[in-house]
């Protein structure tokens, strides 16, 4: 293929060439970054929660009378017995919070009581001997709580948890060498030591925000019923009976006592709903990025079709002359394809630099990782193919120009 005549011809329509190259560059830069954002969000959303999510649901019960903590304590124990007795329910536990809830209680974790700065931060889940079975989270080391270890805890009282169970990631963070089992940690400002009696498999914290990245899998299970203004009940339905259990459980709770408020909208939520709620912003952002990318590619393709069509129309006579002088249809076709490829290469080179530049800027402005080069390479390939595809129709039209055109004047 002779590139020199193509370059010479390009010099005659500089503005158009530059515009197409510019459009390709901008599209590449934006689409690369948009796809990268989509990928990041999807990675975030597909992180495991460490919970066996099917058949699990949560109920939030607000106490109508919040003043008497003793009565709340008795009510919580009665509620749990009632829930566990339901035919459709496999197990149930009370808690203050759970993975993916979004908000909750997190404490600084220390290894020494007088250590000036925290070792790490962790979600605090108030639990009992049924919590692990209800969540469907495996214990990889040590033992579960016993019923006698579970105490009552007022929100403002100092926490004295003699035993705690911690998540695998927290154990690894606190004790990089060796097992956490039997070690002492400090989980509250009350500075009472707690012995690690068990380590769970992966268990996600309630925090889903990107700021909580380093702490996202830190969880401490405290053997206590938290006597707060409200409580959550985690309920595991028997396999296949989730809907029935979600209907039965609130009724059973109201049969226990009417002195509570269970929100009719989100008082009872399946874990699938909890997950959807935790990540709905990410889903929205990913969809938006997807739409923008598709529309941008479509507009760029349409722009290439439009401008190339114009060039073909402008050069009918020259094409005719070339055909009359012996150029084949394939020659004409490959001329336009090559021309587009050359412009495209110019565009994607500029676009790749721009894409990386935009990403570096976003790293400083937003919580964003470095763009992986694979995205740039994939984007470059995609835009070159898109350009060739877009130019194909006008180029085919050009190749059908008859040699007779050379003799015609318009």
């Amino acid at each position: 293929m002779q590139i020199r005549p193509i370059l010479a011809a390009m010099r005659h329509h500089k503005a158009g060439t530059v515009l197409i190259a510019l459009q390709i560059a901008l599209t590449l830069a934006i689409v690369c970054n948009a796809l990268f954002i989509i990928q990041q969000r999807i990675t975030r959303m597909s992180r495991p929660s460490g919970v066996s999510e099917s058949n699990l649901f949560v109920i939030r019960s607000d106490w109508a009378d919040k003043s008497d903590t003793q009565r709340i304590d008795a009510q919580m124990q009665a509620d749990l017995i009632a829930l566990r007795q339901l035919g459709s329910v496999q197990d149930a536990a009370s808690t203050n919070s759970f993975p993916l809830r979004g908000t909750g209680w997190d404490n600084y974790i220390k290894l020494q009581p007088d250590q000036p700065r925290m070792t790490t931060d962790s979600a605090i889940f108030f639990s009992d001997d049924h919590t692990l079975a209800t969540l469907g989270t495996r214990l990889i080391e040590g033992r579960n709580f016993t019923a006698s270890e579970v105490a009552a805890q007022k929100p403002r009282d100092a926490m004295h948890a003699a035993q705690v169970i911690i998540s695998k990631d927290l154990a690894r963070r606190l004790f990089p060498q060796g097992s956490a089992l039997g070690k002492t940690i400090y989980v509250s400002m009350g500075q009472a030591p707690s012995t690690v009696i068990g380590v769970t498999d992966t268990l996600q914290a309630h925090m889903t925000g990107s700021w909580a990245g380093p702490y996202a899998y830190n969880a401490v299970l405290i053997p206590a019923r938290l006597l707060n203004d409200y409580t959550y009940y985690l309920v595991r339905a028997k396999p296949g009976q989730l809907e029935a259990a979600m209907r039965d459980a609130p009724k059973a709770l109201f049969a226990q006592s009417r002195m509570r408020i269970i929100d009719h909208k989100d008082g009872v939520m399946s874990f699938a709903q909890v997950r959807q709620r935790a990540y709905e912003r990410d889903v929205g952002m990913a969809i938006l990025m997807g739409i923008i990318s598709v529309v941008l590619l479509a507009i760029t393709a349409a722009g290439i079709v439009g401008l190339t069509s114009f060039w073909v129309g402008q050069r009918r006579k020259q094409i005719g002359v070339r055909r009359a002088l012996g150029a084949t249809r394939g020659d004409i076709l490959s001329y336009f394809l090559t021309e587009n490829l050359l412009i495209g290469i110019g565009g994607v080179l500029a676009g790749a630099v721009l894409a990386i530049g935009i990403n570096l800027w976003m790293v400083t402005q937003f919580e964003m990782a470095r763009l992986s080069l694979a995205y740039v390479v994939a984007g470059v390939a995609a835009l070159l193919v898109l350009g060739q595809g877009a130019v194909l129709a006008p180029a085919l039209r050009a190749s059908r120009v008859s040699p007779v055109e050379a003799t015609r004047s318009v």
Partner: protein
Amino acid sequence: MFTYYLDLALRSLKRNKALTALMVLALALGIGASMTTLTVLHVLSGDPLPGKSHQLFYPQLDPQDMDGYKPQDEPPEQVSWIDGMALLQARRAHFQALMTGGAVPIQPAQSSIDPFFEDARYTTADFFPMFDVPFLYGQGWNATDDEASAHVAVLTRELNEKLFGGKDSTGQTLRMNDVAFRIVGVLDSWRPTPHFYDLNTGSYSADEGVFVPLATATDLKFARNGSTDCWDKGSSENMKTATCTWLQFWVQLDTPAEATAYREFLLNYSREQKALGHFQRPPNVRLRDVMGWLDYNKVVPSDVHLQVWLAFGFLLVCLVNTVGLMLAKFLRRSGELGVRRALGASRRSLFAQLLVEAGAVGLVGGAGGLLLALLGLWLVRGQPSDYAALAHLDLPMLLATFVAAVMASLLAGLLPAWRACLTPPALQLKSN
């Protein structure tokens, strides 16, 4: 002349419908996307109390112990009861109010309405005059009511609508948490956006429905909503003595001189507390005004900023696309332009004619963009975020949409029109 150009432009646009449609569509998409995201940003980063916000300040102190102390750390974002009360009683500002969020069970007198929880604000009396809160009926309570822990309440217009059918309910009794309160005032519609005075309960959340004196709420142990940060032994049954920050404190300082004096007062207070052994850290105070406080808290979600940048990148591509297509369109008409030049039209009038054509594309594109922006905002309102309901196009943004569209298309037409006019008429005729 203009109408003639317009006529020419419309004829030319009609001649090549696909190309015109593509230009209009690209412009409309770009404008629609930019205006949607910009409107959301505009709504979210607005001034909650225009004209007053620069006089309202949020004092911050650092009463924490030395545990985890770093000299460059910001002080806590709320105040403890002890410090809040001390600052309140010092009365060094024009107005000052100490407050926190909460929720109360409301037991309506009519049996037709079931008891329900309503978000509440427990505050001292200056809240109402300081934030220029409009009253429909009655008024707020006064400092005497605060001191006496009076059982008085102020309702919002919405809650008054729900409980009393919108009638003047001042003087009536409202039962909350089994205690009777006398209604002293009903607010008119009031929703400062963002919810600047307490960002813990959601930056853009709907406001609380009922207001109760802070002392009354703490005496009756009403439930709190919001964040509590503790240090040292922290937790204790009594929040009034706990080493925890959990209250918001706002002051009104009318002049910069007053603000400077108040900052000095905060420093002195901190020094004094340190001397008394109540504070341990070196004095570390902040006095931000409303907008400074919102900036510091980064209330506008970063995703919204990202979307605005994305939309403007999108608009840029659409504009480049339009420039390319207009160039093709104008250059294709060199014959026609050559004839007009040969017949005596000046370059300037040809340029004007082409720009009118570009402007026409811009107007149609702008109208399309407006429709798309309305559609986009409707989609945003369907989103689950707490600011969703606020996404409405206001008049300035509507005008901005049109100006942006026409400016964008004129800008896009500038280069092609200039290029098309540049070729000498003889060459334009000859090339045919």
